[in-house]
């Protein structure tokens, strides 16, 4: 079966290119499947249950989007550095992967309006003397390669001109290095930090401070030119908040308090 697929792939590679694509929104509805890239080492947004099935806020969000479109959802696991390449290569239709809406990324992919907003915390090894985020100056710090907080932290280390920045490939590696004392501190979302401190899987770590970053608004992404789909996703996110589903998912995965506001004061979207 696999060999058949492989030879079919080789054959396809030797024949000519496919005809021009129809609108992606039409394609998804016609195919009956919505393929979402989700990062599954990022609880509570994405992780796996004890049967290793994908669960989390982003997984539910993908299912909701598929239900709204009237199709079935297919969750494709990607890592943070790989989610945009996966989108570009056509192996997924959208990424529901807590993607921060940076201007650099918008040169390559198309963003919806924000669907969630993170705050970031500074987490340190207990043996390191730290009281505020500024104590990270001169220390060995690290974060998951290619994420919003990694880009921020690396910029800070460059500004300070001392200390060292290390980009690990996964969030799990970052916390392992922190717990072993290879890193003095890291910056991660409050949600992930709290979950990891509470789980006890990483002994010897503590949350020190909030990181003084602009709230990290994250959005759904698809190909840059798929306006029809982006439009649909914008309305979908609006409806999720309007119908109270956003609050419901927040309570289910994150906590009892009010979810972060998705409104930016003083400006139109």
């Amino acid at each position, binding site marked *: 079966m*696999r*060999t058949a*697929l*492989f030879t079919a*792939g*080789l054959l*396809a*590679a030797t024949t000519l*290119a*496919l005809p021009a694509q129809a609108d992606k929104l039409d394609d998804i509805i016609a195919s009956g499947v919505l393929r979402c890239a989700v990062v*599954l*080492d990022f609880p509570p947004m994405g*992780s*796996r249950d*004890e*049967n*290793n099935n994908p669960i989390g806020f982003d997984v539910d969000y993908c299912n909701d989007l598929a239900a709204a479109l009237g199709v079935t959802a297919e969750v*494709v*696991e*990607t890592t943070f550095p*790989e989610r945009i*390449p*996966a989108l*570009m*290569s*056509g*192996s997924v239709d959208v990424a529901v992967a807590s993607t921060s809406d940076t201007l650099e990324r918008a040169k390559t992919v198309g963003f919806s309006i924000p669907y969630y907003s993170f705050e970031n915390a500074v987490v340190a090894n207990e043996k390191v003397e730290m009281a505020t985020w500024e104590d990270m100056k001169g220390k060995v710090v690290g974060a998951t390669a290619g994420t919003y907080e990694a880009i921020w932290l690396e910029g800070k280390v460059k500004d300070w001109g001392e200390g060292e920045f290390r980009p690990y490939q*996964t*969030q*799990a*590696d970052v*916390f*392992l290095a922190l717990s072993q004392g290879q890193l003095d501190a890291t910056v991660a979302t409050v949600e992930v930090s709290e979950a990891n401190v509470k*789980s006890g*899987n*990483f002994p010897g770590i503590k949350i020190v401070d909030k990181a003084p970053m602009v709230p990290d608004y994250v959005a759904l992404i698809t190909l840059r030119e798929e306006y029809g789909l982006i439009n649909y996703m914008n309305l979908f996110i609006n409806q999720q908040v309007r119908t109270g589903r956003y609050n419901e998912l927040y309570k289910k995965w994150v906590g009892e308090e009010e979810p972060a506001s998705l409104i930016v004061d003083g400006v139109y979207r």
Partner: protein
Amino acid sequence: MFDTALTVNDLLLLARGAGMTLLVTAISVFFGTILGIVFGVFRYQVGPWWAAPLTFILDIFRSIPLLIQLVLANAFITTVLGFRISGFSVACGVLSLYTAAYCAEIVRGGIEAVPQTLRRAARSLGMTWGQDMTSVVLPLATRVALPSWIGLALGVMKDSALVYIVQVVELLKSTQILITRLQEPLFLLMICGLFYFLISFPIARFGGYLEKRWSND
């Protein structure tokens, strides 16, 4: 250390990953060997001058990190050309060519190890080129080449750990999935390393045994 939250389900996930590693290896070694034999015989037959373009292309596969070959092939086929193709196919395709590049060298070395005089003798007995190749060169060259070929196959199995980069869930990737959930990195990695070792070690030993046995007579 052995106090673990690993369940039967998780072991199944690891087993599936191991199966994927072996499947990718088997496909790549199979196609890679066929291509390698074709390329190797071709290179020997037409001489270094005419084989130069082929030699150059095969050399590229041996001079660039496999990780970059995979990333580039995937980006080129799916993003630049816009083909829909699975990561599995990309992985098998790249690994096959990668195997072929090394295999061609081994095959050429094997053929060169067969004494010219012996082959001339075979042809003077009236054997055709094909007969000479299959009845004289093949058995003798195999003796020289097989131990290196075994080494190559094992190398491809170990290198297949890199296909996680094109979203193929093989042994190392499934280990990482479990590490993320269970947060027992060292224990799980030991299991993963042990698996590679248990497959590779006996076969490598067998290759060494063949080499020793065949080099004595």
